[in-house]
């Protein structure tokens, strides 16, 4: 039996350490992983937990991320709790296996510490990698700081392993800004954390020799569609379970998370919509904008997949203007979030649609400052007053060279 760690009521942890402790507390049976900046410390911390007897599952340090996810799939099919962590190029190398894991409905938990994609090579945080796995049939949860990285990891096992869900789950956190920034984190004791997550419940295990399972069959035009539709349906319905787990976690800790998180949105006319650490910066900027007479708010979502279209559309529908902040650039298109948020709003019936603008920022961790956010709120205010978009739809923040904008 692994030894427990005595934790303080408040620990000073960065996001990686917070994630590592959550993985340790989950008493995972198999972790298979490969290092890459900025998620490497998750793997290293875990290695030291193993070396010091705080973990008694298997820790398999494989030769690549593709192998890491392959081993995770084999291990999960064999019927136990499984997790891994990666970033950027490593996640890119895993993509093939992501689809295979979700297709087999294996509840693996993956910590994705978001980072830019080469080329040019860049080790810093942006959200480009998150979108590689967007359509892979995994639940995608978003966090803003180390406390949330910890909390969401505990909840991720509950969500993924729920018998109605059985879908692999990603916990996103921002590279460096969350993963390498030490903050106060309130952990649960090992015992309470494990009790919350619960024992792993096996289903169709490869190690059940009385009922031999066939995993990863092929299905052509006669069955493939049905399989994919089943996964999609389970994913769409998983938000119910996500909300249930949020609720139980709130009862246990007092920390309440919601599918849609808003700040000062009730009476707001304009708002910034963002993911990750930017949400916290935007809240500061919104508070300051209110001092200047702008009715400013902020919104974010906790589950990027399943995407909460209806809830988000309803939360934002009364705003006059919204800036959608994309920390990635889908080449040749509007930002990915811009497209999703726009779709949410167009699903709201009988609504006068808010004016939408798209800001591309922070690629390769280019700074986003309070002055930048102040200017965005100013532009939103102008749009709201004019009742129309007063500038191009897609603009770039902090980009050197000639001003770039589209549409």
């Amino acid at each position: 039996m692994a030894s427990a760690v005595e934790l303080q009521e408040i620990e000073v942890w960065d996001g990686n350490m917070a994630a590592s402790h959550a993985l340790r507390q989950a008493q995972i049976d198999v972790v298979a992983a490969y290092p890459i900046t900025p998620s490497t410390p998750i793997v290293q911390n875990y290695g030291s937990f193993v070396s010091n007897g705080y973990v008694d599952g298997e820790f398999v340090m494989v030769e690549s991320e593709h192998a890491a996810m392959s081993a995770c799939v084999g291990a999960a099919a064999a019927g136990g709790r499984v997790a891994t962590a990666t970033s950027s190029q490593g996640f890119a190398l895993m993509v093939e296996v992501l689809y295979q894991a979700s297709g087999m409905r294996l509840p693996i938990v993956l910590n994705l510490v978001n980072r830019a994609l080469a080329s040019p090579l860049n080790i810093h945080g942006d959200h480009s990698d998150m979108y590689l796995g967007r359509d892979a049939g995994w639940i995608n949860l978003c966090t803003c700081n180390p406390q949330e990285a910890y909390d969401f990891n505990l909840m991720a096992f509950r969500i993924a392993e729920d018998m109605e869900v059985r879908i692999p789950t990603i916990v996103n956190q921002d590279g460096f800004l969350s993963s390498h920034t030490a903050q106060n984190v309130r952990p649960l004791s090992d015992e309470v954390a494990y009790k919350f997550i619960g024992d792993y419940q096996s289903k169709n295990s490869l190690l059940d020799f009385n009922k031999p399972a066939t995993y990863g069959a092929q299905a052509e035009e006669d069955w493939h569609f049905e399989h994919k539709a089943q996964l999609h349906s389970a994913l769409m319905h998983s938000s119910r379970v996500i909300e249930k787990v949020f609720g139980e976690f709130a009862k246990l800790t007092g920390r309440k998370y919601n599918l849609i998180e808003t700040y000062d949105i009730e009476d707001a006319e304009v708002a910034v919509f963002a993911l990750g650490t930017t949400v916290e910066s935007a809240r500061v900027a919104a508070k300051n904008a209110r001092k200047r007479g702008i009715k400013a708010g902020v919104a974010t979502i906790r589950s990027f997949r399943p995407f909460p279209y209806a809830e988000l559309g309803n939360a934002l529908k009364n705003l006059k203007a919204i800036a959608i902040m994309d920390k990635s650039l889908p080449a040749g298109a509007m930002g990915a979030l811009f497209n999703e948020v726009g779709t949410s709003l167009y699903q709201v019936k009988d609504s006068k649609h808010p004016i939408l603008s798209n800001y591309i920022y922070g690629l390769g961790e280019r700074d986003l400052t309070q002055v930048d956010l102040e200017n965005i709120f100013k532009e939103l205010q102008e749009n709201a007053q004019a009742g129309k978009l007063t500038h191009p739809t897609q603009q770039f923040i902090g980009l050197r060279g000639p001003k770039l904008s589209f549409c």
Partner: protein
Amino acid sequence: MVKEIKNLKQFSKSAEKFEGAHLLCPGCAHGMIVREVLNAVDGPVVLGNSTGCLEVSTAVYPYTSWDVPWIHIGFENGSTAVAGAEAMYKALAKKGKYNGQKPKFVAFGGDGATYDIGFQWISGCFERGHDMTYICLDNEVYANTGGQRSGSTPIGASTSTTPAGKVSYGKKERKKDILFVMAAHGSPYVAQVAPNKWKDMNKKIKQAIDTQGPTFINAMSACTTEWRFDSNQTVEVSDLAVDSLVFPLFEIINGTEVKITYRPKNIVPVRDYLGAQGRFKHLFKPENEHIIEQFQKDVDARWEYLQRREEAKV
């Protein structure tokens, strides 16, 4: 645990773990090899499979030919799928959550999955020392996708990506020597087998599966479709392969000790083996005869080398 099979009658009686109802071509040696492997194991076994002929022919939803736990992930990672399952077994056994008999872990891959795209994964598994047996179904071609060349295709073979033509005699490169590559990983046991020599094969598979650690079997798998011979000729063509020493049967223990396990009484010329298959037909044209000579020289040299290694016991 392995099973004692003494004669062909016993062998033919115990194949229910792999159902005859599958979609492999008539005469395909893949099915013979799988039956021989499953017959050699008595206790619980977990199988992994890479994408290829065996996989697409045996697990077509909603059917399965497998009466044992079986997993396919992708083309390259059958080895790591099994390694992951083996790691899970270890974890659960340690925690007292699995109390049954220790299973055997076996992965199958074609030569494409083994010599080429999946090599990194196999190498990783062997370096980490998972307790598993990897079995390559070596038909020297990507058969599932229509007969393209692989790193295992021999020199002179006409394949769909290296077709013999006006200026080409087919594949230019020699076959990769996978056994010595795998032995160099320090594997406790690697061996080459052919399904027509079933006793030799049965013995080696048992040894591989019962040896602790990662073990490797390269199984020659004659492919009626891509080697181009009649579907009732599988065993004859396989006999020619081992009797011409194109496919010598030997094993390497602990990474160094070479043992030849079959010495043909009458060694047949390589041209007899080549002549029995459509993929080498063009080599018998006068302008390509030198490739047959080259082939024979290569086979002689390798046999010589194997014998010297065996004698030297290093």
